[in-house]
Each structure stands twice: as structure tokens, then as C-alpha cells.
């Protein structure tokens, strides 16, 4: 009868069995083009003047039709005349990295095309994406994203982007703002700010 003991021990040991092999390895990122800043990047992270806004428009990552209008100072703004097409604005590389960032906030106005039908969607869905070292997640692009539906407004209005799948605050090495396009209209952005 004693010979049956090993059998029962073996069965008992199985109760604690259950294992999983190597887990999914951490993803890595091959960096894209850099956008150096001609100005020092330090808090508060606000881009308002013509020179500052031009960083977001004039780089190899930016897409779509965009120009800088207004004066040289704080009255300058970015003009996107074709929000019906994909557009993208890339902020400068932040050195040192901005810490404690919660989201992106912009001041904008949006003029939908007057010829749009009364039932046409007039808002612009935009997304702010952050390159955030250390927050890679094994899904989608791995970049924290915040979203905003920019409603039509003839007056300047401020709008903070709503964090998506990330839990703020996060560290940010750069930010970019983009939209896949919607209906025709003109979007003007007076300033952009990383909210800490």
C-alpha cells in the first residue's frame, strides 16, 4: 500500500501546477524624425508667437496645408484651411523632457464651410499624441493620446483634450496634434499649451 503514496503525492503536486512561459517582451521604438526647437524648451510649455507656432508647422513630420497668420507676437496663429483633409502639427522635441503633463490645451476658432448641408457634421475630431518614455503599452501605437471634438466657433475658445487610454500625469518628450479630416472648413489655432 505504501507504493501508492508516490501516486497520490504526484496528484497532489498537480494542484499547484499551472504555468506560463515567457511573457510578451516589451516593445521598442525606432524614433521618427526629430524636430529641434530653435528656442529653449522649459515650463510653461506654451507656443503662442509666430516663431513658436512655426515650429509646429514647418517640420518634416507636419502634414496638410497650414500657414502662420497674424503678427509676429501673441496675435499670430496657425491657419488650417483644409480641415476636410488629414492634417498634423508636430511640436518640438522637449529637452529636458516635460514632466507631469496632463494633456494638451489649445485656443482655436473653427469656421465650417458655409455651403455644407444643414445636417453635415461641422466639428473637427482631433487627437493629441504624446511621445512618453516609459509608458509604452502593448497595444496600438503605444503612444498616449487625448481627444477633442472641436466645435464650430467664430470666437476664440479654449479646449483641453480629454485623456484617452493613459493615466495622467505623464512625461512627454514631444507632442503632436492631428486629425484624419472631416467636412470642409477652416481651423485657426492661436496657441498650444501642455497642461501640467
Amino acid at each position, binding site marked *: 500500500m505504501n507504493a501508492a503514496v508516490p501516486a497520490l503525492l504526484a496528484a497532489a503536486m498537480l494542484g499547484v501546477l499551472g504555468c506560463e512561459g515567457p511573457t510578451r517582451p516589451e516593445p*521598442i521604438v525606432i524614433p521618427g524624425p526629430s524636430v529641434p526647437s530653435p528656442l529653449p524648451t522649459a515650463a510653461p510649455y506654451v507656443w503662442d508667437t509666430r516663431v513658436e507656432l512655426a515650429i509646429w508647422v514647418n517640420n518634416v513630420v507636419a502634414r496638410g496645408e497650414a500657414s502662420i497668420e497674424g503678427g509676429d507676437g501673441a496675435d499670430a496663429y496657425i491657419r488650417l484651411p483644409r480641415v476636410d483633409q488629414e492634417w498634423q502639427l508636430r511640436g518640438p522635441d522637449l529637452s529636458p523632457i516635460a514632466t507631469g503633463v496632463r494633456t494638451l490645451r489649445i485656443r482655436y476658432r473653427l469656421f465650417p464651410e458655409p455651403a455644407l448641408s444643414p445636417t453635415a457634421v461641422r466639428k473637427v475630431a482631433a487627437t493629441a499624441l504624446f511621445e512618453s518614455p516609459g509608458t*509604452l503599452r502593448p497595444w496600438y501605437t503605444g503612444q498616449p493620446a487625448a481627444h477633442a471634438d472641436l466645435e464650430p466657433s467664430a470666437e476664440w475658445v479654449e479646449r483641453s483634450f480629454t485623456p484617452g487610454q493613459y493615466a495622467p500625469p505623464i512625461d512627454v518628450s514631444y507632442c503632436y496634434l492631428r486629425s484624419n479630416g472631416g467636412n470642409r472648413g477652416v481651423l485657426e489655432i492661436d496657441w498650444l499649451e501642455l497642461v501640467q
Partner: protein
Amino acid sequence: MTRTIVALATAGVLVAHDASAQEAPIPRVEVGGVVSAIVPFVSDGANVMIGGGPKLTVNIWRGIGIEVEADVVGPTESSGIYGLYLVQVKAPITRSGNGARGFSVTAGVAGAASYHRFDESRTPRPDGSVLVQPGYRRFRADSPNTLVFGIARDYVVDRLVSSTWGVQVLGGGIGIIGVRAYVGLTLGAGSYR
């Protein structure tokens, strides 16, 4: 579960003891393979899965043995290799006319296992960077949370070869109640006759 296994093992010991007077030699270790058909009864019906794999038996005392089996089963609806591992106690209840082998009862536990291989993936991002997910392999073995009870029949084919078939009922942790039937051959490390 443990109590059940103990009861079955005890019953087997007693039967084996009664039959010991006409016992034929049983190899201490047997190695072989089985082909199985598994019919899990799930909510949307029964689908037959075919499996197969190696089998190892260690005969401990008077025909009572511990069997370890690993079946690769399919088809499944997803990629990867899925399997079933099984550890059970086998206790003889009858012997054949020549005293060699006969019917046995089996009781044990089983669990699911899977193996997946994921290739490296590269996801371009709008800012021109690329997210690289390195390829990897993943093996997973669930805890043995399924009870298995059955009956088996062994035939000595040759001095070193024995055939086996059996029918088992599976139930419990894998969320189904199913039936598994198998046939196989084993080679004994020692003589069957």
C-alpha cells in the same frame, strides 16, 4: 477529488491483490503513444476533436500505475497549438485469460495547454516612428482543474508491446463535460510475458 482518487486506487489495489496469484510480469516503465478523439459537450453542440501524443506509464505495485499523457488536439478556431495533459492512476480490475492484462479503472486530473508563436510586428506611427513588437513564443499550461474518470483495456501484443484502449469522462475546470476515447501502443521496459 483526492478522496475519489484514493478510493479508486484502493479498490484497484484490492482487486490487484486478489489477482496476484496469476499475475504475469508487468514492465516497471511503459512508453508509447495514443490517438484520441475528444467530444466536448458545450452549449452550442458537440464537436469532435482529434488528438494524439505520447504516453508514459510507471507501474508502481501489482499493476497499479501512474500514467502521464499529453495530447495535441485539433482542430481549433484559433492559431496556435492546443493540447491536453493528463495524469491519472490506473488500477486493474480484471485480468485476461492468460493472466496478462485486462480491464482497469482510471482516475486523474487533466489540464489544458497551449503554444503560440508570434512573429515580430512593426507598427508605423503618424510621427514617423515605428513601434516594434519583438516576436516571441508563449507556452501556457493551465492548472489541472479537470477531473477524468474512465475505463481502460490492455492487450499484450508481444513480449515488448502492449496495446490499449479506453474511454474517459472529463468534467470540471475547462468548462465542459466531455468524453475522450483513445487507442494506443506501448513499449515496455521489460517483458510483458
